[in-house]
């Protein structure tokens, strides 16, 4: 029997070596695998190269990993945000390396890694600083730059539900980078709200087939859901409104 589920986030991230390249899903906070990142911090793995759209928000999740000085380099499209103070400080201090990639090239390079494409010509970034030094070619009257795949040793992503084969469905815009990162890493680790019995996910609606998934951990339902139904009552950070009221 195939069973890709593991018992805890700690088990899920076991074995991530120092120096690994780790993709982390999410766009801002949506789809960020917070429990897996916390477990990665606890694991002590360091000297990491991180691939994410952003470079952390606030003091939790990816920002906390950065704050713990575990990240040597980050490959992302949009590090600077109103609440990216952790990254900002490290960057200004010269303590983190940044590879800035236009968001569509970032996505396509990840997809290329998963799909066995050796390189591709993209129009995005041509004529800008971010295509400097790249191979440029005119094809059919349009100018393109050659971009290479981004592979990873590990991908940490968040999905909505999984089955024990590792089939995944996502929720709304929390899907973002999850499906492509799952294809591009040697080992893909997923946190989900819930693992459902095999056969319960409609095969027409599976977004990530289990072939791309190695380990799945259920972390419990998001605060804004009740048995899978949206009930609201939270801030954009996912904090329950009543908690919010009482802590400020």
């Amino acid at each position: 029997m195939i069973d890709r589920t593991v018992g805890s986030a700690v088990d899920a991230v076991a074995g991530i070596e120092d120096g690994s390249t780790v993709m982390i899903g999410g766009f801002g906070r949506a789809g960020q695998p917070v429990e897996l990142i916390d477990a990665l911090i606890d694991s002590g793995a360091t000297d990491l190269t991180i691939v994410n759209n952003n470079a952390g928000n606030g003091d939790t999740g990816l920002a906390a990993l950065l704050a713990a000085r575990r990240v040597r380099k980050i490959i992302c499209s949009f590090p600077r945000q109103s609440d990216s103070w952790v990254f900002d400080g490290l960057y200004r201090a010269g303590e983190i390396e940044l590879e800035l990639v236009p968001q569509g090239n970032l996505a396509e390079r990840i997809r290329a890694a998963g799909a066995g494409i050796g390189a591709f010509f993209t129009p995005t970034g041509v004529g800008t600083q971010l295509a400097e030094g790249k191979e440029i070619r005119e094809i059919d009257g349009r100018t393109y730059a050659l971009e290479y795949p981004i592979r990873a040793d590990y991908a940490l992503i968040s999905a909505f539900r999984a089955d024990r084969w590792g089939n995944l469905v996502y929720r709304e815009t929390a899907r973002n980078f999850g499906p492509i990162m799952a294809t591009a890493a040697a080992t893909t680790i997923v946190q989900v709200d819930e693992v459902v019995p095999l056969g319960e996910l409609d095969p027409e609606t599976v977004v990530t087939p289990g072939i791309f998934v190695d380990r799945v951990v259920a972390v419990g339902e998001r605060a804004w859901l009740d048995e899978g139904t949206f009930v609201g009552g939270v801030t954009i950070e996912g904090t329950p409104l009543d908690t919010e009221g009482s802590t400020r």
Partner: protein
Amino acid sequence: MTTRITRDELAARIAADIPEGAFVNLGIGAPTLVANFLPDDEEIILHTENGLLGMGAAPEEGRIDPDLINAGKQPVTALPGAAYFHHADSFGMMRGGHLDVCVLGAFQVAQNGDLANWSTGAPGAIPAVGGAMDLAIGAKEVFVMTDLLTKQGEPKLVAECTYPLTGVGCVTRVYTDRAVFDVTADGFAVRELFGDNTLDELRELTGLDLKEQA
């Protein structure tokens, strides 16, 4: 003082140029205001590059869904007829030329349509590009929404961009607080003057040989 229309007026002016049925991406910042002026009785489908077509208005307090956000990471809703997709599909949609219109902010627009809107190139600034370069080269029509002048009085319409480029020759029209300009093979052509703005005054402010609309 010569007429300068407000941000909201400018957003309304842009909204009026978007036809029913268009697929539209509104960039982060001021361009998102355009959504407030799209007609209620027409269907215009908003794209957000983080994986949604059919984006709706912001939810009420208490109905915020952290899984449902726009590219500016603000809470949004999804309309009936919406569809979710992953990032590679979303940017394929943009790069593949499937969006009809995108509306972007700008630091500078050059008379050949070059756009600079992602970096001032200032030393020490932390660079961040996001999806700006994909939007700039991807949509069929790239509208820029901006004041004609910076707060320091420098024109944003220029002969050549001095800031780092976002895209080459990509802007098709510029909506400013004083006038609307088309980007043509001969440079900027004034499409519409707001209030008492005159072509001569705009030429003086920009230092450019602005054309009259053909």
